[in-house]
């Protein structure tokens, strides 16, 4: 199968698990496992932006790396454009990988300081055998223009660029292989506020122009809200909630989502002074020793006995057009409480 695979879904993640062994002692015996990713199932549709949010340790970055098979999954399946990435051999991967690219958080750390910006992008073309050698210089110029950098900057080194420009080089490098799917892992987090908006707009433009599909990972929930069509909320390696951006942010069904939303600072003193913040007690538990039952019950104000013992199944409380998946025994109660809040807040 090839890029012409007609299905609506570009990427299928099936019960993906990644455990990191914990070893102790002289014999380095495995004494446990950090359950960084513990069975997530997500479909990403062609042309959509799926946002991935959660605290540190929720498994966001592990998910990204396991999907690209930069990490070997412990279990589960990733199907990209009809091809099983998890079962692919070296040769298949060489063919699949150029179509799945990643933009990293820190453009400074991910660019070779001794290579000019132009040669960094050129290298991506060469190692992936993209185009004929004679056409590559022209292609590098095109890529520079595409990300809003003057081709005159090709001979400059990373330290001669600003943070925002370096991130543009990182994006040009990712786009060199003409990917269908791009994972942006905290791609704007290290940038100044005034620059973040530039990069978000650029990503938005490129998506439209090149018909890209994004997985946008960020701890900045308002940016995720802004850029994503759908959002998945991860907690301790599991999907807590998944739905359209509007549903998840405006009609949240999981208490963890409610708490995340409540924690976002609102840049408006009047609204800030009126709102009651739900402050989650404590820190996320250790993923090497996750709580029994629902993993969130230790910090949840909705928790009852059943949450201590039974892990909640994923349920769809949305519509056929817009599924809204949640893993919570008390999702209906959460919805009512969120509605109530809306009525009482002017």
């Amino acid at each position, binding site marked *: 199968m090839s890029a012409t695979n007609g299905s609506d879904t570009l990427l299928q993640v099936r019960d993906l698990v990644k455990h990191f062994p914990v070893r102790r002692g002289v014999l380095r015996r495995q004494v446990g496992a950090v359950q960084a990713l513990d069975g997530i199932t997500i479909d990403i549709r062609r042309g959509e932006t799926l946002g991935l949010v959660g*605290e*540190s340790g929720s498994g966001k970055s592990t998910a990204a790396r396991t999907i690209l098979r930069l990490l070997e999954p412990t279990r589960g399946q990733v199907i990209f454009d009809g091809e099983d990435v998890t079962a692919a051999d070296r040769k298949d991967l060489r063919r699949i990988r150029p179509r799945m690219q990643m933009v990293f958080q820190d453009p400074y750390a991910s660019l070779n300081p001794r290579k000019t910006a132009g040669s960094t992008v050129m290298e991506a073309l060469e190692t992936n055998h993209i185009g004929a050698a004679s056409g590559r210089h022209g292609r590098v110029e095109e890529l520079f223009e595409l990300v809003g950098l003057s081709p005159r900057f090709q001979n400059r080194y990373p330290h001669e660029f*600003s*943070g*925002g*420009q370096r991130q543009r080089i990182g994006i040009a490098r990712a786009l060199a292989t003409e990917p269908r799917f791009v994972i942006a892992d905290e791609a704007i987090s290290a940038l*100044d*506020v*005034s*620059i*973040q*908006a*530039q990069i*978000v*707009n650029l990503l*938005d433009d490129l998506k439209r122009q090149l018909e890209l599909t994004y997985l946008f990972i960020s*701890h*900045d*929930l*308002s*940016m995720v*809200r*802004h850029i994503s069509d759908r959002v998945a909320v991860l907690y301790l390696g599991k999907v807590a909630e998944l739905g359209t951006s*509007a549903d998840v*942010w*405006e009609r949240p069904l999981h208490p963890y989502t409610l*708490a*995340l939303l*409540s*924690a*976002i*600072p*609102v*840049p*408006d*003193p*009047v*609204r*800030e*002074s009126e709102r009651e*913040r739900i*402050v*989650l007690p*404590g*820190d996320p538990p250790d993923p090497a020793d996750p709580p029994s039952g629902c993993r969130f019950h230790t910090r949840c104000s909705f928790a009852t006995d059943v949450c201590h013992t039974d892990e909640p199944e994923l349920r769809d409380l949305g519509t056929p057009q817009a599924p809204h998946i949640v893993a919570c025994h008390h999702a209906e109660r959460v919805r009512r409480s969120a509605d109530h809040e809306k009525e009482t807040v002017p």
Partner: protein
Amino acid sequence: MSEPLLEVSQLAVGFDTDEGPVHAVNDISFTLREGEALAIVGESGSGKSVTALSIMGLVPSPPGRVDAGSVRYKGRELLGASERDLRRIRGREIAMIYQDPMTSLNPALTVGRQITEIVRHHLGLDRRQAADRAAELLTLVGIPNAAGRLGEHPHQFSGGQRQRILIAMALSCDPAVLIADEPTTALDVTVQAQIIELVKDLRERLGMAIVWITHDLGVVAGLVDKVTVMYSGYAVEQAPLRELFAQPSHPYTVGLLRSLPTFGGDRRRLTPIPGSPPDQARRVESCPFAPRCDWVIDRCREEFPALAGVAPDHGVACHRRDEVRDTPPLAAAAP
């Protein structure tokens, strides 16, 4: 009105670098009264952290030097004060917390030891009293089972807890002023919310004055009484909190507000500020923001705009401040 607790006036701090002098902070002035909270907002290179360090007398010299100005605490000049006098004020009267708790805590010493050392040194408590005080402080900042954890090392705590421990250390001598330099930047949004609520609560209970340094206008909206916005070493706008958000009057402040996504649901395109901030601040004869400003006129490139009032306690360093002020902040574009 009462005498200000902390009064910074016309502060100028420079650094000698291989590429010549950098003017990190130029003519910054602000006052802080007892129990008042001020935010200094700016991006990287704006001079906000250098301002904080110079209040504490902690600008490394060389290459840094305070070129001019004064920092008065309870009427006493701190600039040029002896290291001995400064040490008495630092920690005891003015305490500071930093962005990265792991680098500010000593990884080799137990948390209890790090707190008891401070209170024994500054408050002259004995070993027993100091341990009690340490446990009390950790409880105050919300570390469960505090007394039992005094013997643990920093790496045994989570990132959020380490930031709480730093806050506990800063509070250990009941300072009158707490300076917080991006204390929540490295933290998850949930932990950030915990820390903000904690600081608000401590401010109410202990009556501390606060200087909160951040790049995030969103964070300050629920936390402070007034804001100083810095750009490239200059204070470009100073205003009471609500006034700043309701009628931002410097194009940079307006630009920062417009770069933030609104949480309303409309997916309007973001309005970024074009270009990037200069990576090294220099003293300029023109407006430092002119190269990125959509309101720019010839005068901006020829004449430096001094900070001038547009309303009580609201100063703006822009030649077109009155026009900017009269334009709603989220209007489509500058005329």
